[in-house]
């Protein structure tokens, strides 16, 4: 046990805020929509035409897993799920930037669409904005004890 465990801190404000309430409730909803659509897309692509573009379809499946993890971790509200949420959202950010850039620069090597193709153009660029919202929200709800109470915004 370290001092960073939310459970051992006595102060009411010391524990991190839940990531699943307030704005987080809506954020989880949007993540859920993307978890669903990315899964459906990947499932369809892999089931019907995986051999056509294995790399793109594998990336599609990967993005689906990332969205599912982010959705679940944010919905769980924090605690042990918080690092999972951070990781998932960071991977999501790297994913949309990397896949977006590659799909724009080397369209020929990227014949098939993923949620992240062209920075999520097919989804109104929401996939590009979403990880930034996720990171901002995780930062906003972070624990005081995680950061030794320095510069915390406890705007209750």
């Amino acid at each position: 046990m370290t001092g960073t465990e939310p459970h051992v801190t006595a102060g009411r404000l010391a524990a991190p805020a839940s990531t699943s309430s307030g704005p987080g409730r809506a954020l989880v909803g949007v993540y859920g929509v993307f978890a669903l659509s990315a899964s459906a897309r990947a499932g369809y692509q892999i089931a019907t035409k995986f051999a056509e573009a294995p790399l793109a379809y594998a990336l599609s499946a990967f993005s689906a897993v990332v969205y599912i993890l982010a959705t679940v971790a944010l919905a769980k509200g924090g605690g042990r799920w918080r690092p999972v949420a951070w990781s998932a959202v960071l991977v999501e950010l790297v994913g949309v930037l990397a896949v977006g850039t590659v799909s724009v620069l080397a369209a020929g090597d990227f014949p098939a669409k993923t949620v992240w193709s062209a920075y999520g153009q097919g989804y109104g660029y929401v996939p590009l904005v979403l990880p930034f919202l996720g990171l901002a929200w995780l930062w906003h709800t972070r624990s005081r004890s995680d950061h030794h109470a320095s510069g915390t915004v406890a705007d209750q």
Partner: protein
Amino acid sequence: MIGPVSLLVVVLALALAVWALWFVIRDRAVILRQLWGGAVVEAVLVAQAVAAIVLVANGTGSPDRALFGGYILSQLLILPLAAVWAFEERTRWSSVLFFVAAFTTAFLEYRLLQIWGSL
């Protein structure tokens, strides 16, 4: 697909979205009556799904079955899941969530029509 039913889905879902957006502006949480509104949309969606399956089985429509089925299923799931998730939250953010769900439902109808070949 069935034109009038699709139109009904889009109109009802968008009406629900506007209602939710109004609640966002008024800083209000989702109310039970909105969930009933969602249930009405859901009832039309179920009827549409059954009709679409019959039409595909008859050979009347020939969309890419896996793709079409995926969209039908996603569309059926979104409002019920959103209703449960939104109703636990008693702030305006539940209305934001409900707006996203209703709008997505309408958008998926548009995609369904594209896949069916009507658009």
